[in-house]
């Protein structure tokens, strides 16, 4: 590859690439994200290419393997670009029909079209799909639209033009001012104004400064950053260079989870391609600016997403947080001024530079500008990755974009903010989502996990799930977090086993406030949130567990029992034979009985019984010999 040595060069390259691309009359985009990879999209891509080549159509039709479309639930996805057709659940075998029917004859293949779960109608135009209609894709603009493994595809889509603009037309302060004016806030969870952070770091004098991209993505049900790095790594590289120019840093570091092999591969590829073109390295675009990027690997510790811990981890130490101030902007990696931003924050930067601060600030609410990417998951029809303007309501997200609750069940709650966040209910459905509103109603934006829960979920168990995570991930440096969270977990465990008392409710609240007030870092300071918000919004469920010894969703095993209905039992002995602990007794052709003291509630008998005589009862079985316990 010849080097691009000026902005004019870059623009010329784009023109040539545009012309080359225009030779193709049709484009097929095949999803190559993690979800679709798992569902054989590689075979599909290969089949499409082979069949097109066989027919001599490979000069007319271009097949591109892209990053995630966001609609992973119905993957693998194929998009026929010229008429916006959106095919779902496509198998490698379907490649032939797509070519023969759609490409050659121009007729859409009905069986591969998406059926809207709300209207039950087939939708072929992706812009008309409920899932996409209310989305506004800025950070995800190129995910599902370009080949992330080819820098040329990025350049066709305006990649590195913003860097060119900054280097040729703006000085550092002017660049920072644009970001400030755009109102962009950090997408990693805290929501700190990005321009202000850059400004602070730029004003500290030092012989070396660093730009760090936080790609640790620790929230255990979220994959926004991963999708961006896998689908559009160049936007992050370009943004880090812009940041380096603004604050006066020549080295960028990406701290990325080792558990993300595909993202690492694509990021490395992208960095190498940018270097080959001279878009990273010395004297970028002939403007005397040097910048290069290295990778550092996380090793599975949630707390390392916290910026001071992250920096210690990059230094080869245990990833334990330290007290702020000093902030990384003043003293960070190796004691030098370090600007830490999240992947999604960076992905917004090039578009803001290209389209202007006013454009960006016109999207969103008064204090939260732009869009936010969420990983929408749980008991919802359209699980996937979405990007919505700030200010949208939960109702729009869940019932329009998400297509409503799975299997016609009833909505119960939605959890945002991951282990630091909280559960919101029916009454919050119409709250416009932004940083401040979410905090006001007892949750937080977090990095973008959004888990929808239905009537089958037990809220005490959900709180316990997050506490379990926190106990495992606390770094142990300070006592309230290390011991306090363990105690919180134990109390929740007690309640889910039907051994809770009313005093436990008070204990949960008191302990929570001590942990929040006295922990050193953000992990401990927010760890009781899942407990507090479920107590606030679902107090009656806690009370049922404690007083009635009942779990209405049937999740808490200790609080339910299996029972045989004597009238329905024909005495076939099937259940008796399958019980692993011999808890069932009864003679042939006589009603059988389960001994509750022996039963381990494995559920095998219920499945085995062909006469529906065995069922789950939600209350704890009251043993006659112990009286009412």
């Amino acid at each position, binding site marked *: 590859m010849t080097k691009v040595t000026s902005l004019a060069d870059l623009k010329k390259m784009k023109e040539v690439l545009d012309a080359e691309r225009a030779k193709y009359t049709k484009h097929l985009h095949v999803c190559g994200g993690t979800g679709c990879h798992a569902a054989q999209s590689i075979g599909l891509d290969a089949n499409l290419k082979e069949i097109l080549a066989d027919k001599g159509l490979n000069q007319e039709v271009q097949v591109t393997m892209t990053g995630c479309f966001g609609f992973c639930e119905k993957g693998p996805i194929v998009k026929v670009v010229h008429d916006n057709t959106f095919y779902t659940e496509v198998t490698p075998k379907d490649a032939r029909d797509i070519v023969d029917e759609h490409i050659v004859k121009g007729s859409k293949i009905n069986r591969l079209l998406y059926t809207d779960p709300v209207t039950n109608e087939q939708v072929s135009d992706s812009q008309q799909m409920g899932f996409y209609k209310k989305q506004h894709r800025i950070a995800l603009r190129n995910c599902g639209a370009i080949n992330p493994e080819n820098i040329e595809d990025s350049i066709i889509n305006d990649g590195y033009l913003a860097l060119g603009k900054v280097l040729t037309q703006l000085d550092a302060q002017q660049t920072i001012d644009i970001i400030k004016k755009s109102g962009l806030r950090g997408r990693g969870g805290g929501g700190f104004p990005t321009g202000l952070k850059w400004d602070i770091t730029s004003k500290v004098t030092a012989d070396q400064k660093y730009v760090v991209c936080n790609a640790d993505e620790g929230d255990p*049900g979220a994959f926004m950053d991963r999708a961006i790095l896998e689908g559009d790594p160049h936007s992050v590289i370009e943004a880090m260079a812009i940041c380096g120019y603004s604050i006066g840093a020549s080295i960028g570091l990406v701290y990325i989870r080792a558990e993300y092999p595909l993202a690492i591969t694509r990021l490395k590829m992208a960095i190498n391609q940018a270097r080959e073109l001279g878009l990273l390295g010395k004297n970028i675009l002939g403007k005397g600016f040097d910048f290069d990027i290295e990778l550092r690997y996380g*090793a599975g510790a949630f707390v390392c997403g916290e910026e001071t811990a992250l920096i210690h981890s990059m*230094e080869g*130490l245990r990833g334990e947080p330290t007290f702020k101030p000093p902030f990384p902007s003043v003293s960070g990696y190796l004691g030098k001024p370090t600007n830490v931003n999240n992947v999604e924050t960076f992905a917004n930067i090039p578009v803001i530079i290209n389209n202007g601060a006013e454009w960006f600030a016109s999207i969103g609410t008064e204090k939260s500008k732009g869009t936010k990417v969420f990983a929408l998951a749980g008991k919802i029809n359209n699980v996937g990755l979405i990007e919505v303007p700030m200010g949208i309501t939960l109702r729009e997200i869940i019932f329009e974009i998400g297509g409503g609750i799975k299997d016609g069940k009833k909505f119960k709650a939605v959890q945002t903010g991951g282990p630091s966040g909280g559960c919101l209910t029916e009454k919050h459905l119409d709250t416009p989502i932004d940083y401040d509103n979410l905090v006001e109603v007892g949750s937080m934006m977090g990095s973008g996990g959004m888990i929808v829960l239905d009537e089958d979920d037990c809220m005490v168990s959900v709180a316990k799930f997050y506490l379990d995570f926190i106990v495992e991930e606390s770094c142990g440096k300070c006592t309230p977090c290390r011991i306090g969270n363990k105690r919180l977990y134990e109390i929740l465990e007690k309640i889910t086993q039907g051994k809770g008392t009313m005093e436990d409710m008070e204990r949960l609240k008191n302990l929570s406030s001590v942990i929040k007030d006295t922990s050193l870092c953000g992990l401990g300071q927010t760890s009781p949130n899942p407990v507090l918000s479920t107590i606030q919004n679902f107090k009656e469920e806690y009370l049922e567990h404690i007083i009635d010894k009942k779990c209405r969703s049937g999740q808490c095993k200790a609080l339910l029992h299996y029972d045989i209905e004597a009238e329905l039992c024909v005495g076939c002995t099937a259940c008796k034979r399958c019980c692993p602990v011999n808890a069932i007794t009864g003679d042939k052709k006589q009603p059988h009985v389960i001994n509750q003291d022996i039963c381990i509630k494995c559920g095998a008998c219920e499945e085995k019984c062909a006469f529906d005589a065995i069922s789950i009862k939600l209350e704890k079985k009251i043993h006659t010999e112990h009286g009412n316990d």
Partner: protein
Amino acid sequence: MISKIISEEKTNIIEEVNLASKKEAGDTIQKLDKTATMYTYASTEKGNVKVKLKLSDEKIKKIQEICQLFNNEAGELINVLHQTQHALGYLPAEVQEVIAHSLNVSTAHVYGVVTFYSYFTMIPKGRFPISICTGTACYVRGAEKVLEEFKRQLGIVVGETSADGKFSLSCLRCVGACGLAPVVLVGEKVYGRVSPDGVKAIIEAYKDK
């Protein structure tokens, strides 16, 4: 004969043992000095024993080369550990000692870092490492029941390796395929929408490999 190396201490037998699989690689097992503080656990038919591996010269050289790749800089410890684990499969105490020596830091420092990060393991993984996603999306769609079924069928708990060295069991949080929840990984292969009933078929697929 040692059949597997495990994580938990169950007994304290100290004896000379012969680890067939390790021998192939040229390592030998040493009788453990009673005062030794760093050791590797191995399970024998008689129970679990503490052993000390004597690494083959070849392996030691390999580790030293990795350290050299990073200029023996202490600040590169985590990168060194990643590469070493990639090359050897795990990071037993004896390997940590070599690294500590090369980077000129204490073994305790290396040990502190290895145990802090869940990605690093001191127990060799099975040939087909099974990881169950216990991220939130998978949890609400029944990951726990799937995990229970794997434990039951393999007869091991999380963090252990099966006696034949074939399977090991671990949990991880969100692999980015939440749309397919609950998700199970065997090596790098992703299985989506796994139900407890489907567990058997997954294990069967690797039984004869």
